[in-house]
């Protein structure tokens, strides 16, 4: 599904160069539920962003469905992100100006879908995360756990093959965190979705099929 070859990522600021990732070789298979662990600053988010085509590696190849995508132009990358990938961020990243359904609809806006169909799919996704009663609320009227569920609904609404979640439970207490993880597991089982999740929580990581460990920008086994 996703494979990374000889990935290296260097952040260049005015004076400092940070080597965030080096010699990353890794393969995520279809329908896998993988978690990524490692100490803070080891490069987990960087790795996930590169997998999700949100950022470009400084070196190396990213293959999605065996297609090398690093050299793709903006439009093609946008299309892949739109059709194949759903993101969940630690800090939710909802658009405060839009209400819950409008937020969930965002991935569908960039597809050829009628307003009616978009609404139907968005409401169905909200139903799956148990938020049918809050569709007209705005993000700042919701609790952290509810916001993250909106974010999950947005990630799954387009039925992507891959879900990338960067510490989806990082801002939530453990009960709410477990709810979120349960939703992801459901989705993994029922829709055969490939999920890659960054987490700090050993308990949560243990529930996944495979744990990748990063240390200082390198994979460790």
């Amino acid at each position, binding site marked *: 599904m996703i494979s990374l070859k000889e990935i290296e990522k260097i952040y260049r600021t005015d004076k400092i160069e940070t080597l965030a990732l080096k010699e990353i070789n890794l393969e995520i298979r279809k329908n896998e539920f993988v978690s990524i662990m490692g100490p803070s600053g080891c490069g987990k988010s960087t790795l996930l*962003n590169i997998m*999700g*085509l*949100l*950022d*470009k590696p400084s070196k190396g190849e990213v293959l999605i469905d065996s297609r090398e995508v690093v050299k793709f132009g*903006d*439009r093609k990358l*946008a*299309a892949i*992100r*739109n*059709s194949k990938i*759903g*993101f969940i*961020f630690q*800090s*939710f*990243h*909802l*658009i*405060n*100006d*839009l209400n819950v359904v*409008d937020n969930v609809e*965002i*991935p569908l*806006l*960039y*597809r050829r879908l009628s307003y009616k169909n978009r609404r139907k799919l968005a409401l169905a996704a909200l139903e799956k995360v148990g938020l049918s009663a809050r569709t007209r609320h705005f*993000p700042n009227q919701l609790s952290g756990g509810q916001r993250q569920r909106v974010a999950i609904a*947005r990630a799954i609404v*387009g039925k992507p093959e891959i879900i990338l979640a960067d510490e989806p439970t990082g801002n939530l207490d453990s009960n709410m965190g477990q709810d979120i993880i349960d939703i992801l597991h459901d989705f993994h089982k029922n829709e055969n979705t490939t999920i890659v999740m960054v987490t700090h929580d050993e308990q949560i990581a243990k529930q996944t099929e495979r744990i990748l460990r990063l240390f200082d920008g390198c994979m460790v086994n």
Partner: protein
Amino acid sequence: MLKNYIKIAIKVLLRHKLFTFISLFGISFTLMILIIIVSLVDHTFGKMAPETRLDRTLSATYFKFSHTDKHSSSNGPIMSYYFFHKYAKTLEIPKKVSISSFHKNVETYKENKKFKMALKYCDAEFWEILDFTFLEGQPFNLTDVENINPVAVITRNVKEKYFNDEFCLGENMMIDGINYIILGVVENISILRPLPYSDIWVPITNINEDLLEPRLEAVSFPSYFALALAEKPADLPLIKEEFQNKITQMEFFNDMFNQLEGGFETYFETIAGVLFGRSSDGGANTSGLLVTILITMILFMLLPTINLVNINISRIMERSTEIGIRKAFGASSVTLVGQFMIENIIITLIGGFLALIFSIVILHIINQAHVLRHVTLAINWRIFYKSLLICLFFSLFSGVWPAFKMSRFQPVEALRGGQS
């Protein structure tokens, strides 16, 4: 897709009420000021009845006497009938030359009611060079002028006030002891058009003075001016030159002065002279007028434009997270730029529409309140479209440029721009 964009745009604009209000205010205010200024400028400078032949007409109004050795000088619209009769009437290049007085204020009574009006003495050529709109009757002719006939042309306004809007051709009107018979009624004349302006026009021979008394300065107010109509626009400089040649050989009747500056000018030069004064040689300060018009326009355009650009840029920068989110879920740079473009077009068009309504209301108020006599300001649609285009350009530019810049970022970089 376009429908989507428009829906998103309207949603965003409704959510950002303060921004929307400020933008709309900026755009509509800019456009409104522009429309009003242009309609004033248009009204003052543009071709408009009765001055429809501005491109072929010259006027001689302002002169300056001085002495090469003494410190004496006299200037202004001060010339006598004799002066124009001798040096302007005799010009050969113009098709027609007219001599008229500036208007003076007169009072007349009817049934113990007092009427204050402007009166102008003019000749028969005056009606031929200028293009008055006659609602009834006709102007007086050469015979009327030569025979000193007590006839008059009045405006619609005088007819309405003095004659209660009843049929008045052939009726009488007593002014300065002369009983004038009404010969024609013309459309009201704006006070911003000083040369044709008056309420009543009568043959110049009715004036109570010896017109041909040899003197250069008028005896008293009102003084006189000349209009010259050329065959074609290209003749205008030739007429100016012919007149200058004539007055260089002029006879001064006393030794107070031995120099005269001034001559025939275009309409634009005359207005510039009135508004911005004249240089020491009597020439109108046309560059001053042009520069002022330009600076006013630029200021009125620039300040709100900068404001608009500024608001737009900071607004889009503020929305960097939104851009990041949209990119992460599949919006391409082109799509995003399109979205911001539509947003800006919508807000500019709404602003333009509001500006139009405000301008119509304000122009209506100016026209109704009679702030300026007989000034009827109208919207110049050509300028409205142009300024709307300019506003569109700036709001597009100011919206698209930062959106384009933001959309170049990798999605992570945009997301890092803010937290949600």
